[in-house]
């Protein structure tokens, strides 16, 4: 095993990476609204069912003209949405099943069309639909250095090739203009991303309301269903712009994963969009590099880059599930631990206060262990001493003056709760202690003009 190796080669890597990045960003942006509206699988359905639209457009236009492809995809996308709605309504079919029926039949139709087209040697391939052909997006213009990258002619592609002379005959074989600058797919993707940003930017307010509450959006005068169809058209466009380069599987992954990951990071829509874009960028670049770098550790050939980007998106999501600062499993576990510690601390202080009330300011540790279970007592004692609330002297625990105040406040809350539960909630007095035991650690506090609790004990004054 060796170190992962990745050598960035402008000619070979720039466009595949850029294509993956653009596809990820465009799909990631739109995906936010799919995930929020709980229609992520509509993205899945559309990215399957644009296939027949594309193939038909291709067969009619007999070329991969972007315009024909877009029209084909948009029509197929809208047809999917309409058909799903129709099947749902006319057939009283559950939405998931309706979607499954529509997209699988359309996809099958697309596959069949491709297979029959393939017989006539038309350049379409069912496999590339799924995982794309990122690797074929290299720069056919011979770019040797970064300098050339920054020259306009390299990008426009109109590099005039010096005449190639046949060395034997001296005949000019080719005096060609390389017509390959930026690959068509990358241009298409860039246009798609710009359009998606324009769409979201212009209609942000409307999209937000529609995602939150479609009924409200309609009463406010936005046409939620028109917006829905517009979103679906953009998803279809993103699919078709992406699929040639990165394949439909990356489209589905990028429609759902970055937005879902972002959902775990924040509760605000704008922040969520920003996070999702960051995740989309990270997944696409990271995935692309990993596709080469990780197999190189064992001296193996690179793997499929689109697949690798998908995996990267999945890895990011898994990481977010575990370590997200807001909703991650780790943070939640830590907070629960902290809460447990503070509950134990409260229990300890309350116990000491009760002892103090009965004229026993110094309590042997062993007696406290009966009231606060072992491990929790250790933590609670440690915390209390660190915060200077108790002193531990020769196995005897005593409250400091601050500790006495804190303990008094806890007991006050406890006894106020008991009073409230008995007087207002009708709980019998011999029963309230346990409930109050839980509530005393929490912020709400009954406001009662009482001096003694139901057991006749004094309620310490508030601070």
């Amino acid at each position, binding site marked *: 095993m060796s170190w992962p190796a990745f050598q960035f080669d402008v000619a070979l890597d720039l466009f595949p990476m850029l294509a993956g990045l653009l596809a990820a960003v465009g799909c990631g942006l739109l995906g936010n609204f799919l995930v929020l509206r709980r229609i992520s699988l509509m993205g899945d359905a559309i990215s399957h069912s644009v296939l027949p639209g594309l193939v038909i457009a291709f067969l009619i236009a007999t070329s991969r003209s972007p315009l024909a492809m877009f029209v084909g995809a948009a029509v197929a996308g809208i047809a999917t949405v309409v058909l799903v709605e129709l099947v749902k309504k006319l057939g009283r079919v559950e939405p998931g099943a309706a*979607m499954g029926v529509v997209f699988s039949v359309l996809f099958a139709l697309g596959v069949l069309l491709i297979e029959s087209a393939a017989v006539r040697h038309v350049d379409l391939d069912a496999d590339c639909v799924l995982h794309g052909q990122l690797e074929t997006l290299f720069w056919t213009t011979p770019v040797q250095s970064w300098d050339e990258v920054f020259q306009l002619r390299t990008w426009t592609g109109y590099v005039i090739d010096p005449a190639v002379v046949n060395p034997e005959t001296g005949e000019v074989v080719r005096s060609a203009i390389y017509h390959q600058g930026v690959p068509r797919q990358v241009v298409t993707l860039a246009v798609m991303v710009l359009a998606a940003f324009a769409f979201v930017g212009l209609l942000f307010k409307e999209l937000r309301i529609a995602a939150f509450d479609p009924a409200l959006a309609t009463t406010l005068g936005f046409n939620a269903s028109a917006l829905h169809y517009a979103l679906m058209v953009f998803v279809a466009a993103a699919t078709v712009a992406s699929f040639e380069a990165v*394949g439909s599987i990356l489209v589905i992954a990028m429609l759902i994963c970055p937005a879902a990951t972002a959902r775990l990071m924040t509760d605000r829509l704008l922040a969520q969009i920003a996070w999702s874009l960051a995740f989309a960028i990270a997944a696409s670049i990271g995935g692309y590099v990993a596709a080469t770098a990780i197999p190189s550790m064992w001296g193996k050939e690179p793997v499929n880059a689109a697949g690798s980007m998908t995996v990267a998106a999945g890895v990011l999501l898994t990481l977010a599930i575990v370590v997200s600062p807001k909703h991650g499993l780790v943070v939640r576990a830590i907070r629960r631990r902290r809460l447990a510690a503070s509950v134990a601390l409260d229990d300890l202080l309350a116990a000491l206060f009760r002892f103090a009330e009965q004229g026993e300011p110094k309590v042997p540790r062993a007696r406290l262990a009966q009231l606060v279970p072992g491990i929790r007592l250790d933590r609670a004692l440690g915390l209390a001493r660190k915060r200077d609330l108790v002193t531990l002297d020769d196995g005897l625990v005593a409250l400091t003056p601050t500790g006495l105040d804190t303990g008094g406040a806890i007991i006050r809350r406890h006894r106020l709760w008991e009073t409230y539960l008995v007087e207002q909630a009708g709980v019998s007095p011999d029963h309230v202690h346990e409930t109050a035991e839980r509530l005393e650690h929490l912020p709400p506090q009954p406001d009662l003009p009482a001096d003694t609790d139901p057991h006749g004990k004094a309620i310490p004054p508030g601070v």
Partner: protein
Amino acid sequence: MIDAGPSLVETLTFRAGFNTSLVVAGTTLLGLAAGVVGVFAMLRKRALMADALSHATLPGIAAAFLAASWLGAEGRSMPVLLAGAVFTGVLGVLAIQAILRYTRLHEDAAIGIVLSVFFGVGVVGLSYIQANRADGSAGIDAFIYGQAASMQPSDVRLMAGIAIFGVLATALLLKEFTLVAFNDAFARVTGWPVSLIDLLMMALVVLVTVAGIQAVGLILVVALLIIPSVAARFWTERIWLLVLLAGVFGAASGYLGAVISSMLPRKPAGAVIVLTAGGVFALSLIAAPARGVIAASFRRLGLRLRIASDHLLEAAFERGDHLLSRAAVDDLATVRGWSTPFRVLLLFRLRLAGFVAGSTKAGVSVSPAGLARGQRVSRNHALWEQYLISDADIAPSHVDWSVDQVEHVLSDELIARLEARLAERGISVPAPAGHSS
């Protein structure tokens, strides 16, 4: 193999050579099992869960291939590959449940995530095998779209075995599956192990999916699970018939699809099978007598006709004349929005029911039976109107509108109760005056 060209009839009747016949028999059985098992995936609303599951089999196939050849065994051994498929398929389902349990994401996102990420892992695995192994992917990428024609007799036998097992298991557990799919809380209260039954249901889906991926491909196998049962739902309201029909539709799709595709140059069996199933679905959606679109629109037309004829008879009764003039009918048609063809149908229905004796240029001549019916409608109208004003606090000016919606659908029992209710309050609605009948 079969390019020598057996005719369609030969293929249909299993006389097109051993291999083709075997494949056709295999896909037929597969379709049967998928249809039967799919009924409960649909009823339990897990259609798309099955989709995620089938996509999640790809990494298992790639991993099983790598693991087997690393251990020196034959990588393309079908049981090994299918075992890998089962493993990651189940892992995918578990991943969906884990996402739902531990995060705030909803089911749609969880399914989409698992579907795409697992499939992405599979794609990476396949490309690794392709790029790094001398024997290439050795045809295991055929699992994505399926390749029925290249199946070996042993593969077909395995597929058929799984399919038969799936059908038998569903038949045995029909009662339990129905109970859990309809009302799982009740099942739990009465002591059924609901999670176990759910698990069995899902296990059958996994088995059928895995059995089908070689023939139909893992992207489209879910179609074979969903479409037959959704199509069968249009024909029946009986669970056993639903299961039976879904099985028949699935088997027919598998059979016809395999036969037709064997005639096509590249034999895309999966796509053709799914399209055949799609055809069955479309036919069911449109033409099924129980829930089909045509049947439903006929029922709606019937109701509209009934209401329209009530309106016409009511108008005739209230005018107190058995001859409803042409101008009056025109007025009604304008107010009620009857088109000319609808008027023709309406008159036809009225004559058929004996409510109209004949229609001339002068107008429509209503029969005594028609006038009697008009009187009943008119009285119902008055009753309901009275009730709305007296009991439901609806302003008299608004009453007529709601009466129009309701008066035609009142049952005799309800009318009797209406009369009793109004009588209790001292309101009596006399039979409206009009043409005596």
